[in-house]
């Protein structure tokens, strides 16, 4: 029992990332009908938003500190971040420590702007072109974005730690009434999962309970009719692209403490997210979320030692294997709607 719960928990953080990226992909596909291969790059850019903010926060100026001496007896020169000057040392330290959560505020406008620029500048011209062209041009864009990030941030992963308050692990098993020390779980992962749940809930609530969301859903169902009713659906879809980009970006921001961001993390996640979207059913938002968590958890079960003893290497291929089986037995995916991408 403990082992099962532990594996489910382990699957949650990866599953959350898959679910968030797949949600964005499906939003874009459902609204604009575009297969966006650059979505992984947006996830990566989100992660680098966190890196950027933590670098901005630690911009320092050099001050001669009279109280400290180096070994020659001269006054020591110390780098003092500007935030210390503005907020005092204690508060400044806290702000720097909380760089990753603060990056959420920074990433949202940046990602929406990037998404809107991308849609207006490039993707708009590809609505009428075949899906293969859309895949290719966004694939090219993904390479370009990735290389730009690589140029400015280098090829090595950049460690971006979580706030000190969330470092370490806690004994989840003891809290749930199992034996202590059986289920140890890092704080940040549970926060990541909660964060993903909030974002997913927010996106669904936005689509379900606001007028804007209603119009978008109507546009997803029948774009032409909505246009005939005199609604500028294109502008709303553009904003939805921005929101999808922001969802991917936020997934990236919060993922940085789990995995140090590097320039190719987007591509690594992209392939899996596409598999997730296809398993969930093209164009189905709940399907994407469900499949994301499902595959994340399956992956973590497959990497259990007991499973690997029977079927070695299963953890490497389980996602693809599931995708192949699902595509062949349920071509529409878990929750795919009829008539979406069926040719």
């Amino acid at each position, binding site marked *: 029992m403990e082992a099962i719960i532990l594996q489910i928990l382990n699957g949650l953080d990866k599953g959350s990332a898959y679910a968030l990226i797949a949600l964005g992909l499906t939003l874009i596909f459902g609204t604009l009908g575009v*297969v966006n291969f650059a979505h992984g790059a947006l996830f990566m850019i989100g992660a680098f938003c966190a890196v950027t903010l933590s670098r901005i926060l630690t911009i320092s100026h050099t001050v001669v500190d009279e109280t400290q001496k180096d070994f020659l007896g001269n006054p020591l020169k110390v780098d003092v971040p500007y935030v210390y000057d503005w907020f005092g040392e204690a508060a400044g330290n806290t702000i720097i420590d909380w760089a990753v959560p603060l990056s959420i505020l920074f990433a949202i406008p940046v990602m929406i702007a990037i998404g809107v620029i991308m849609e207006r500048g*490039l993707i708009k*011209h590809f609505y009428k072109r075949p*899906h*293969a*062209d859309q*895949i*290719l*041009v966004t*694939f*090219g*864009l*993904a*390479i*370009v974005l*990735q*290389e*730009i990030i*690589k*140029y400015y941030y280098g*090829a090595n992963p950049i460690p971006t730690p979580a706030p000190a308050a969330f470092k370490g692990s806690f004994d989840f098993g003891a809290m749930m009434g199992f034996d202590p020390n059986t289920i140890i779980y890092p704080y940040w992962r549970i926060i990541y999962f909660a964060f993903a749940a909030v974002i997913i809930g927010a996106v669904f609530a936005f689509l379900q309970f606001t007028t804007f969301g209603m119009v978008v859903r109507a546009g997803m169902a029948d774009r032409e009719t909505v246009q005939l009713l005199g609604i500028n659906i294109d502008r709303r879809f553009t904003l939805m692209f921005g929101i999808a980009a922001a969802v991917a970006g936020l997934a990236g921001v919060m993922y940085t403490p789990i995995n140090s961001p590097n320039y190719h993390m987007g*591509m690594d996640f992209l*392939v899996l997210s*596409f*598999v997730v979207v*296809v398993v969930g059913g*093209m164009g189905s938002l709940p399907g994407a979320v469900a499949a994301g968590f499902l595959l994340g958890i399956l992956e973590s079960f497959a990497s259990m030692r007991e499973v690997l003893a029977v079927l*070695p*290497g299963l953890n*490497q*291929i389980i996602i*693809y*294997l599931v*995708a*192949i089986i699902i*595509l*062949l037995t349920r*071509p529409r995916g878990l929750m795919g709607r009829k008539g979406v*991408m069926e*040719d």
Partner: protein
Amino acid sequence: MFGLDKKDFRLLLLVAVLVALAPFILNPFPEGSGMAQFNAGYPDLMQRFVIFGIFAIGFNILFGLTGYLSFGHAAFLGVGSYAAIWMMKLLTMNVIPAIIVSVIVAGIFSLAVGWISLRRSGIYFSILTLAFAQMSYSLAYSVLTPITGGETGLQPKVNDPRILDGTLANGATPKANLFGLEMGSSFNLDVGAWVFTFNVGYYLAGIVMLLAFYLSIRIFRSPFGMMLRAVKSNQQRLNYTGLNAKPYTLAAFVISGMYAGLAGGLMVAMDTQVGAERMFWTASGEVVLMSILGGVGTLIGPVLGAGAIKYMENILSKINSDILHTWFAFLPDGLEDFVVTLIYPFIGKGWHLTLGLIFMLVVIFLPGGLVEGGQRVARLFGRKKKSTDTPDGKTTPAE
């Protein structure tokens, strides 16, 4: 000639001449001069030109003719490579059995993958092939280590069985050969300041590429090729005329898989080592880039695309900021630094950025790739000529 019409035969002849004279054409700058770094006429790169040319030709038979976009072709290349290296380890260092077996094994593997993947089309097909390729890659890296060598990969060892070769002389290293003619051996021709290298491996690969190219022309012009084009333009109509498209697409898939296997086998023949990384999905993406860049669905396009990308990969990535500074040394200092910082992100390690940008521009503005670009330029000049021919303004209607 050879069952080709005049135009195709001329194209084949042109390619043959280019392949034969490549050591001259690709080495236009004298050795030791400032431009020598643009020389691509060294064996390693020339071999890559033709091998990736074969890979792209094969991919084009699938994507160019049927429109099925496979994102997993590198898997077939990898499988072919592994088959070839095992032939070299077990049977003989002669490349002929290695290449033949690599084609066969890749064919069988692509038959299995294609049979499943082709049940779906469009993006689902792309994802399925991607899934299969990633699966093969992961397996080659982890579980199949006894067969694939895992992270270290495979290379021929001195104490491999090699049934046909017999034992090697003491201290000799096994080298890939064609009936005793070593693949790595080359002959240098010095003409003044120029050095031209003729490499055995390159010419073998070049001949194989010409055969592959000839075969692809035949496929393009055959009734079978026509059928594949029908699949691309409208599969539904094909179904309604009472034809099952699946056998045709599957045949195209297997043929292109065999081309990939052939390329993999040749890669091993030239450089006797295999690693799983050549099956990674970015490698599959690369062949897609090549075909698109050159011109999908055209005969010569993929070869051009493969050449262009491999040239960029090897030549563009060698330029560093020092070289740039020497180039722009004639500018005033401030301007020089400015120009260098402007260009620097696009060269050296950043060559992928250039590649991505060019690729995007091609997809956006030139869906037909370099071939279409060439045709447009030719048309531009052709029209100009015509207008100068008729100065009185009386133009004959086109066509």
